[in-house]
């Protein structure tokens, strides 16, 4: 279609490379994301489980009132440009954690501060809906395990990316198409297929479109929720390579949720082990894998094939 000829050179200024990693050797230690004492419960809660040490670490269901605690006092810091892995078995609360950070789930208590947001000192869970939408569109990207959640299957791939750009008040079709082709190129989707709907793509391609959509507004933070689960091995490898390459190129900080220690080993600088809604161990990835301290982590590491 002639009217849609893309000329990327027209938008050189706006499409210049991402800010990238801060290469300075000086020491900076300002976390990008500070999460403090996040709680999420299903149920009313009672005197027993609301109290600090009322519940055993071994369960997430209160023996007294049957309230299930999906997250219990989860605290951590995420630094700019780093990859933090979150491992744990199903039901350990790792997906709940990223989904609440993306405002898909409502937390019961807890605070999170985003350094990239203009209101650094405001708990992001207390923002208005409009402000939350701003944070979601500009400062975060989310990649779900299921592409159905992250993509509009009937809208073209470039349209999926345009949706994010439109939400960020871009109103120039030429610019949006140039940006979409740049992003799709980055995730190795042929430009000739940019106007095809993702429902016609394979699972791995859908996941890659989802990643490019999440990166549309160049957020400093990317949340990845079991991105490679359900893909076959060679596709999994391709997606993982892509994530790693993008991280090196763009310097975006990532929160990688996976039950697969292999994925975590390959991607994460630091790792957090979750169980029953709690963070039971945090450390550098190689230290977690070679010298796990907590009994559960040892079990997990030794289950590795």
């Amino acid at each position: 279609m002639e009217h849609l000829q893309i000329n990327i050179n027209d938008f050189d200024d706006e499409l210049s490379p991402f800010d990238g990693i801060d290469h300075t050797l000086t020491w900076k230690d300002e976390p990008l994301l500070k999460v403090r004492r996040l709680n999420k419960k299903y149920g009313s809660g009672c005197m027993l489980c609301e109290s600090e040490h009322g519940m055993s670490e071994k369960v997430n269901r209160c023996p007294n009132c049957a309230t299930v605690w999906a997250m219990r006092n989860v605290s951590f810091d995420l630094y700019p440009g780093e990859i933090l892995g979150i491992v744990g078995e199903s039901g350990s609360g790792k997906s709940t954690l990223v989904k609440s950070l993306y405002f898909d789930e409502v937390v019961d208590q807890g605070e999170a501060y985003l350094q990239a947001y203009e209101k650094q000192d405001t708990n992001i869970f207390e923002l208005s809906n409009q402000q939350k939408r701003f944070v979601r569109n500009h400062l975060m990207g989310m990649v779900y395990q299921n592409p159905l959640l992250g993509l509009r299957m009937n809208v073209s791939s470039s349209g999926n990316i345009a949706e994010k750009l439109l939400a960020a008040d871009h109103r120039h079709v030429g610019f949006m198409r140039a940006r979409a082709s740049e992003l799709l190129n980055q995730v190795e989707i042929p430009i000739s297929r940019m106007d095809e709907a993702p429902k016609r793509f394979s699972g791995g391609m859908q996941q890659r479109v989802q990643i490019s959509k999440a990166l549309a507004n160049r957020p400093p933070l990317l949340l990845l929720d079991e991105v490679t689960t359900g893909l076959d091995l060679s596709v999994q490898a391709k997606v993982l390579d892509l994530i790693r390459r993008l991280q090196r190129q763009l310097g975006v900080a990532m929160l990688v949720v996976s039950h697969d220690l292999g994925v975590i080993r390959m991607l994460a600088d630091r790792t957090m082990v979750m169980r029953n809604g709690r963070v039971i161990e945090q450390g550098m990835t190689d230290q977690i894998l070679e010298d796990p301290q907590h009994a559960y982590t040892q079990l997990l590491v030794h289950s590795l094939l």
Partner: protein
Amino acid sequence: MIQIDGLSKWFDLHIANQMHVKPLRTISFDVEPGKFMGLAGPSGIGKSTILKCIYRTYLPSEGSIWYDSAVWGKIDLATANERQILHLRRNEISYISQFLRVIPRVTAVDIVAERLTARGVTRADAIEQVKLMLQRLALPEKIWDAFPATFSGGEQQRLNIARALISQPRLLLLDEPTASLDYRTKTVVLDLLHEAKKNGTTMIGVFHDLEWLKQIADDTVTLDPSVHAAPLQQV
């Protein structure tokens, strides 16, 4: 440069039957800046454990490791936080292990160049430096763009050495770096290590081969089984 004071390491294994493994008992030694400290002793005595404790792959159980960092001055590696350790790993401390553990599906050149690009060197410059280094280590040029998973043991080892030396670290930890190399390459590695020493790199190394150790080490700590190792304990 580095002062190790009463360092011990034990593992509490909670799975299977509770086990208490203590591979290393109270060891202390100092290393002066720009010197090479060799570690000697029979296998299983905990030489690698010391190196891993310094690199913090192992969390030291007892004692302290005082390191003279460029950023903060004296810092105890045994208690420093993860962020500090990651910063030191990226900028000051390199580690050569017996095995190459790298990210799959990245070419040999990129694996080594990554160390430089992570510190702000442009890709083109980095690759040029890497090629010089690989040439010196006599890694065949035709495999530079291949994936290291397909390499022979010796090739992987050379890549490992290139990766550690390219960034000119302040502290270099060597865990049997020449184990699977032929005589000629061993000499090259030794040259490179001498060169690094001349540039001011402090080194702590484990060599299987005492002849080679003598050629480079300024000093040696010999670990004694009766003092530094403890038998397996069943709790």
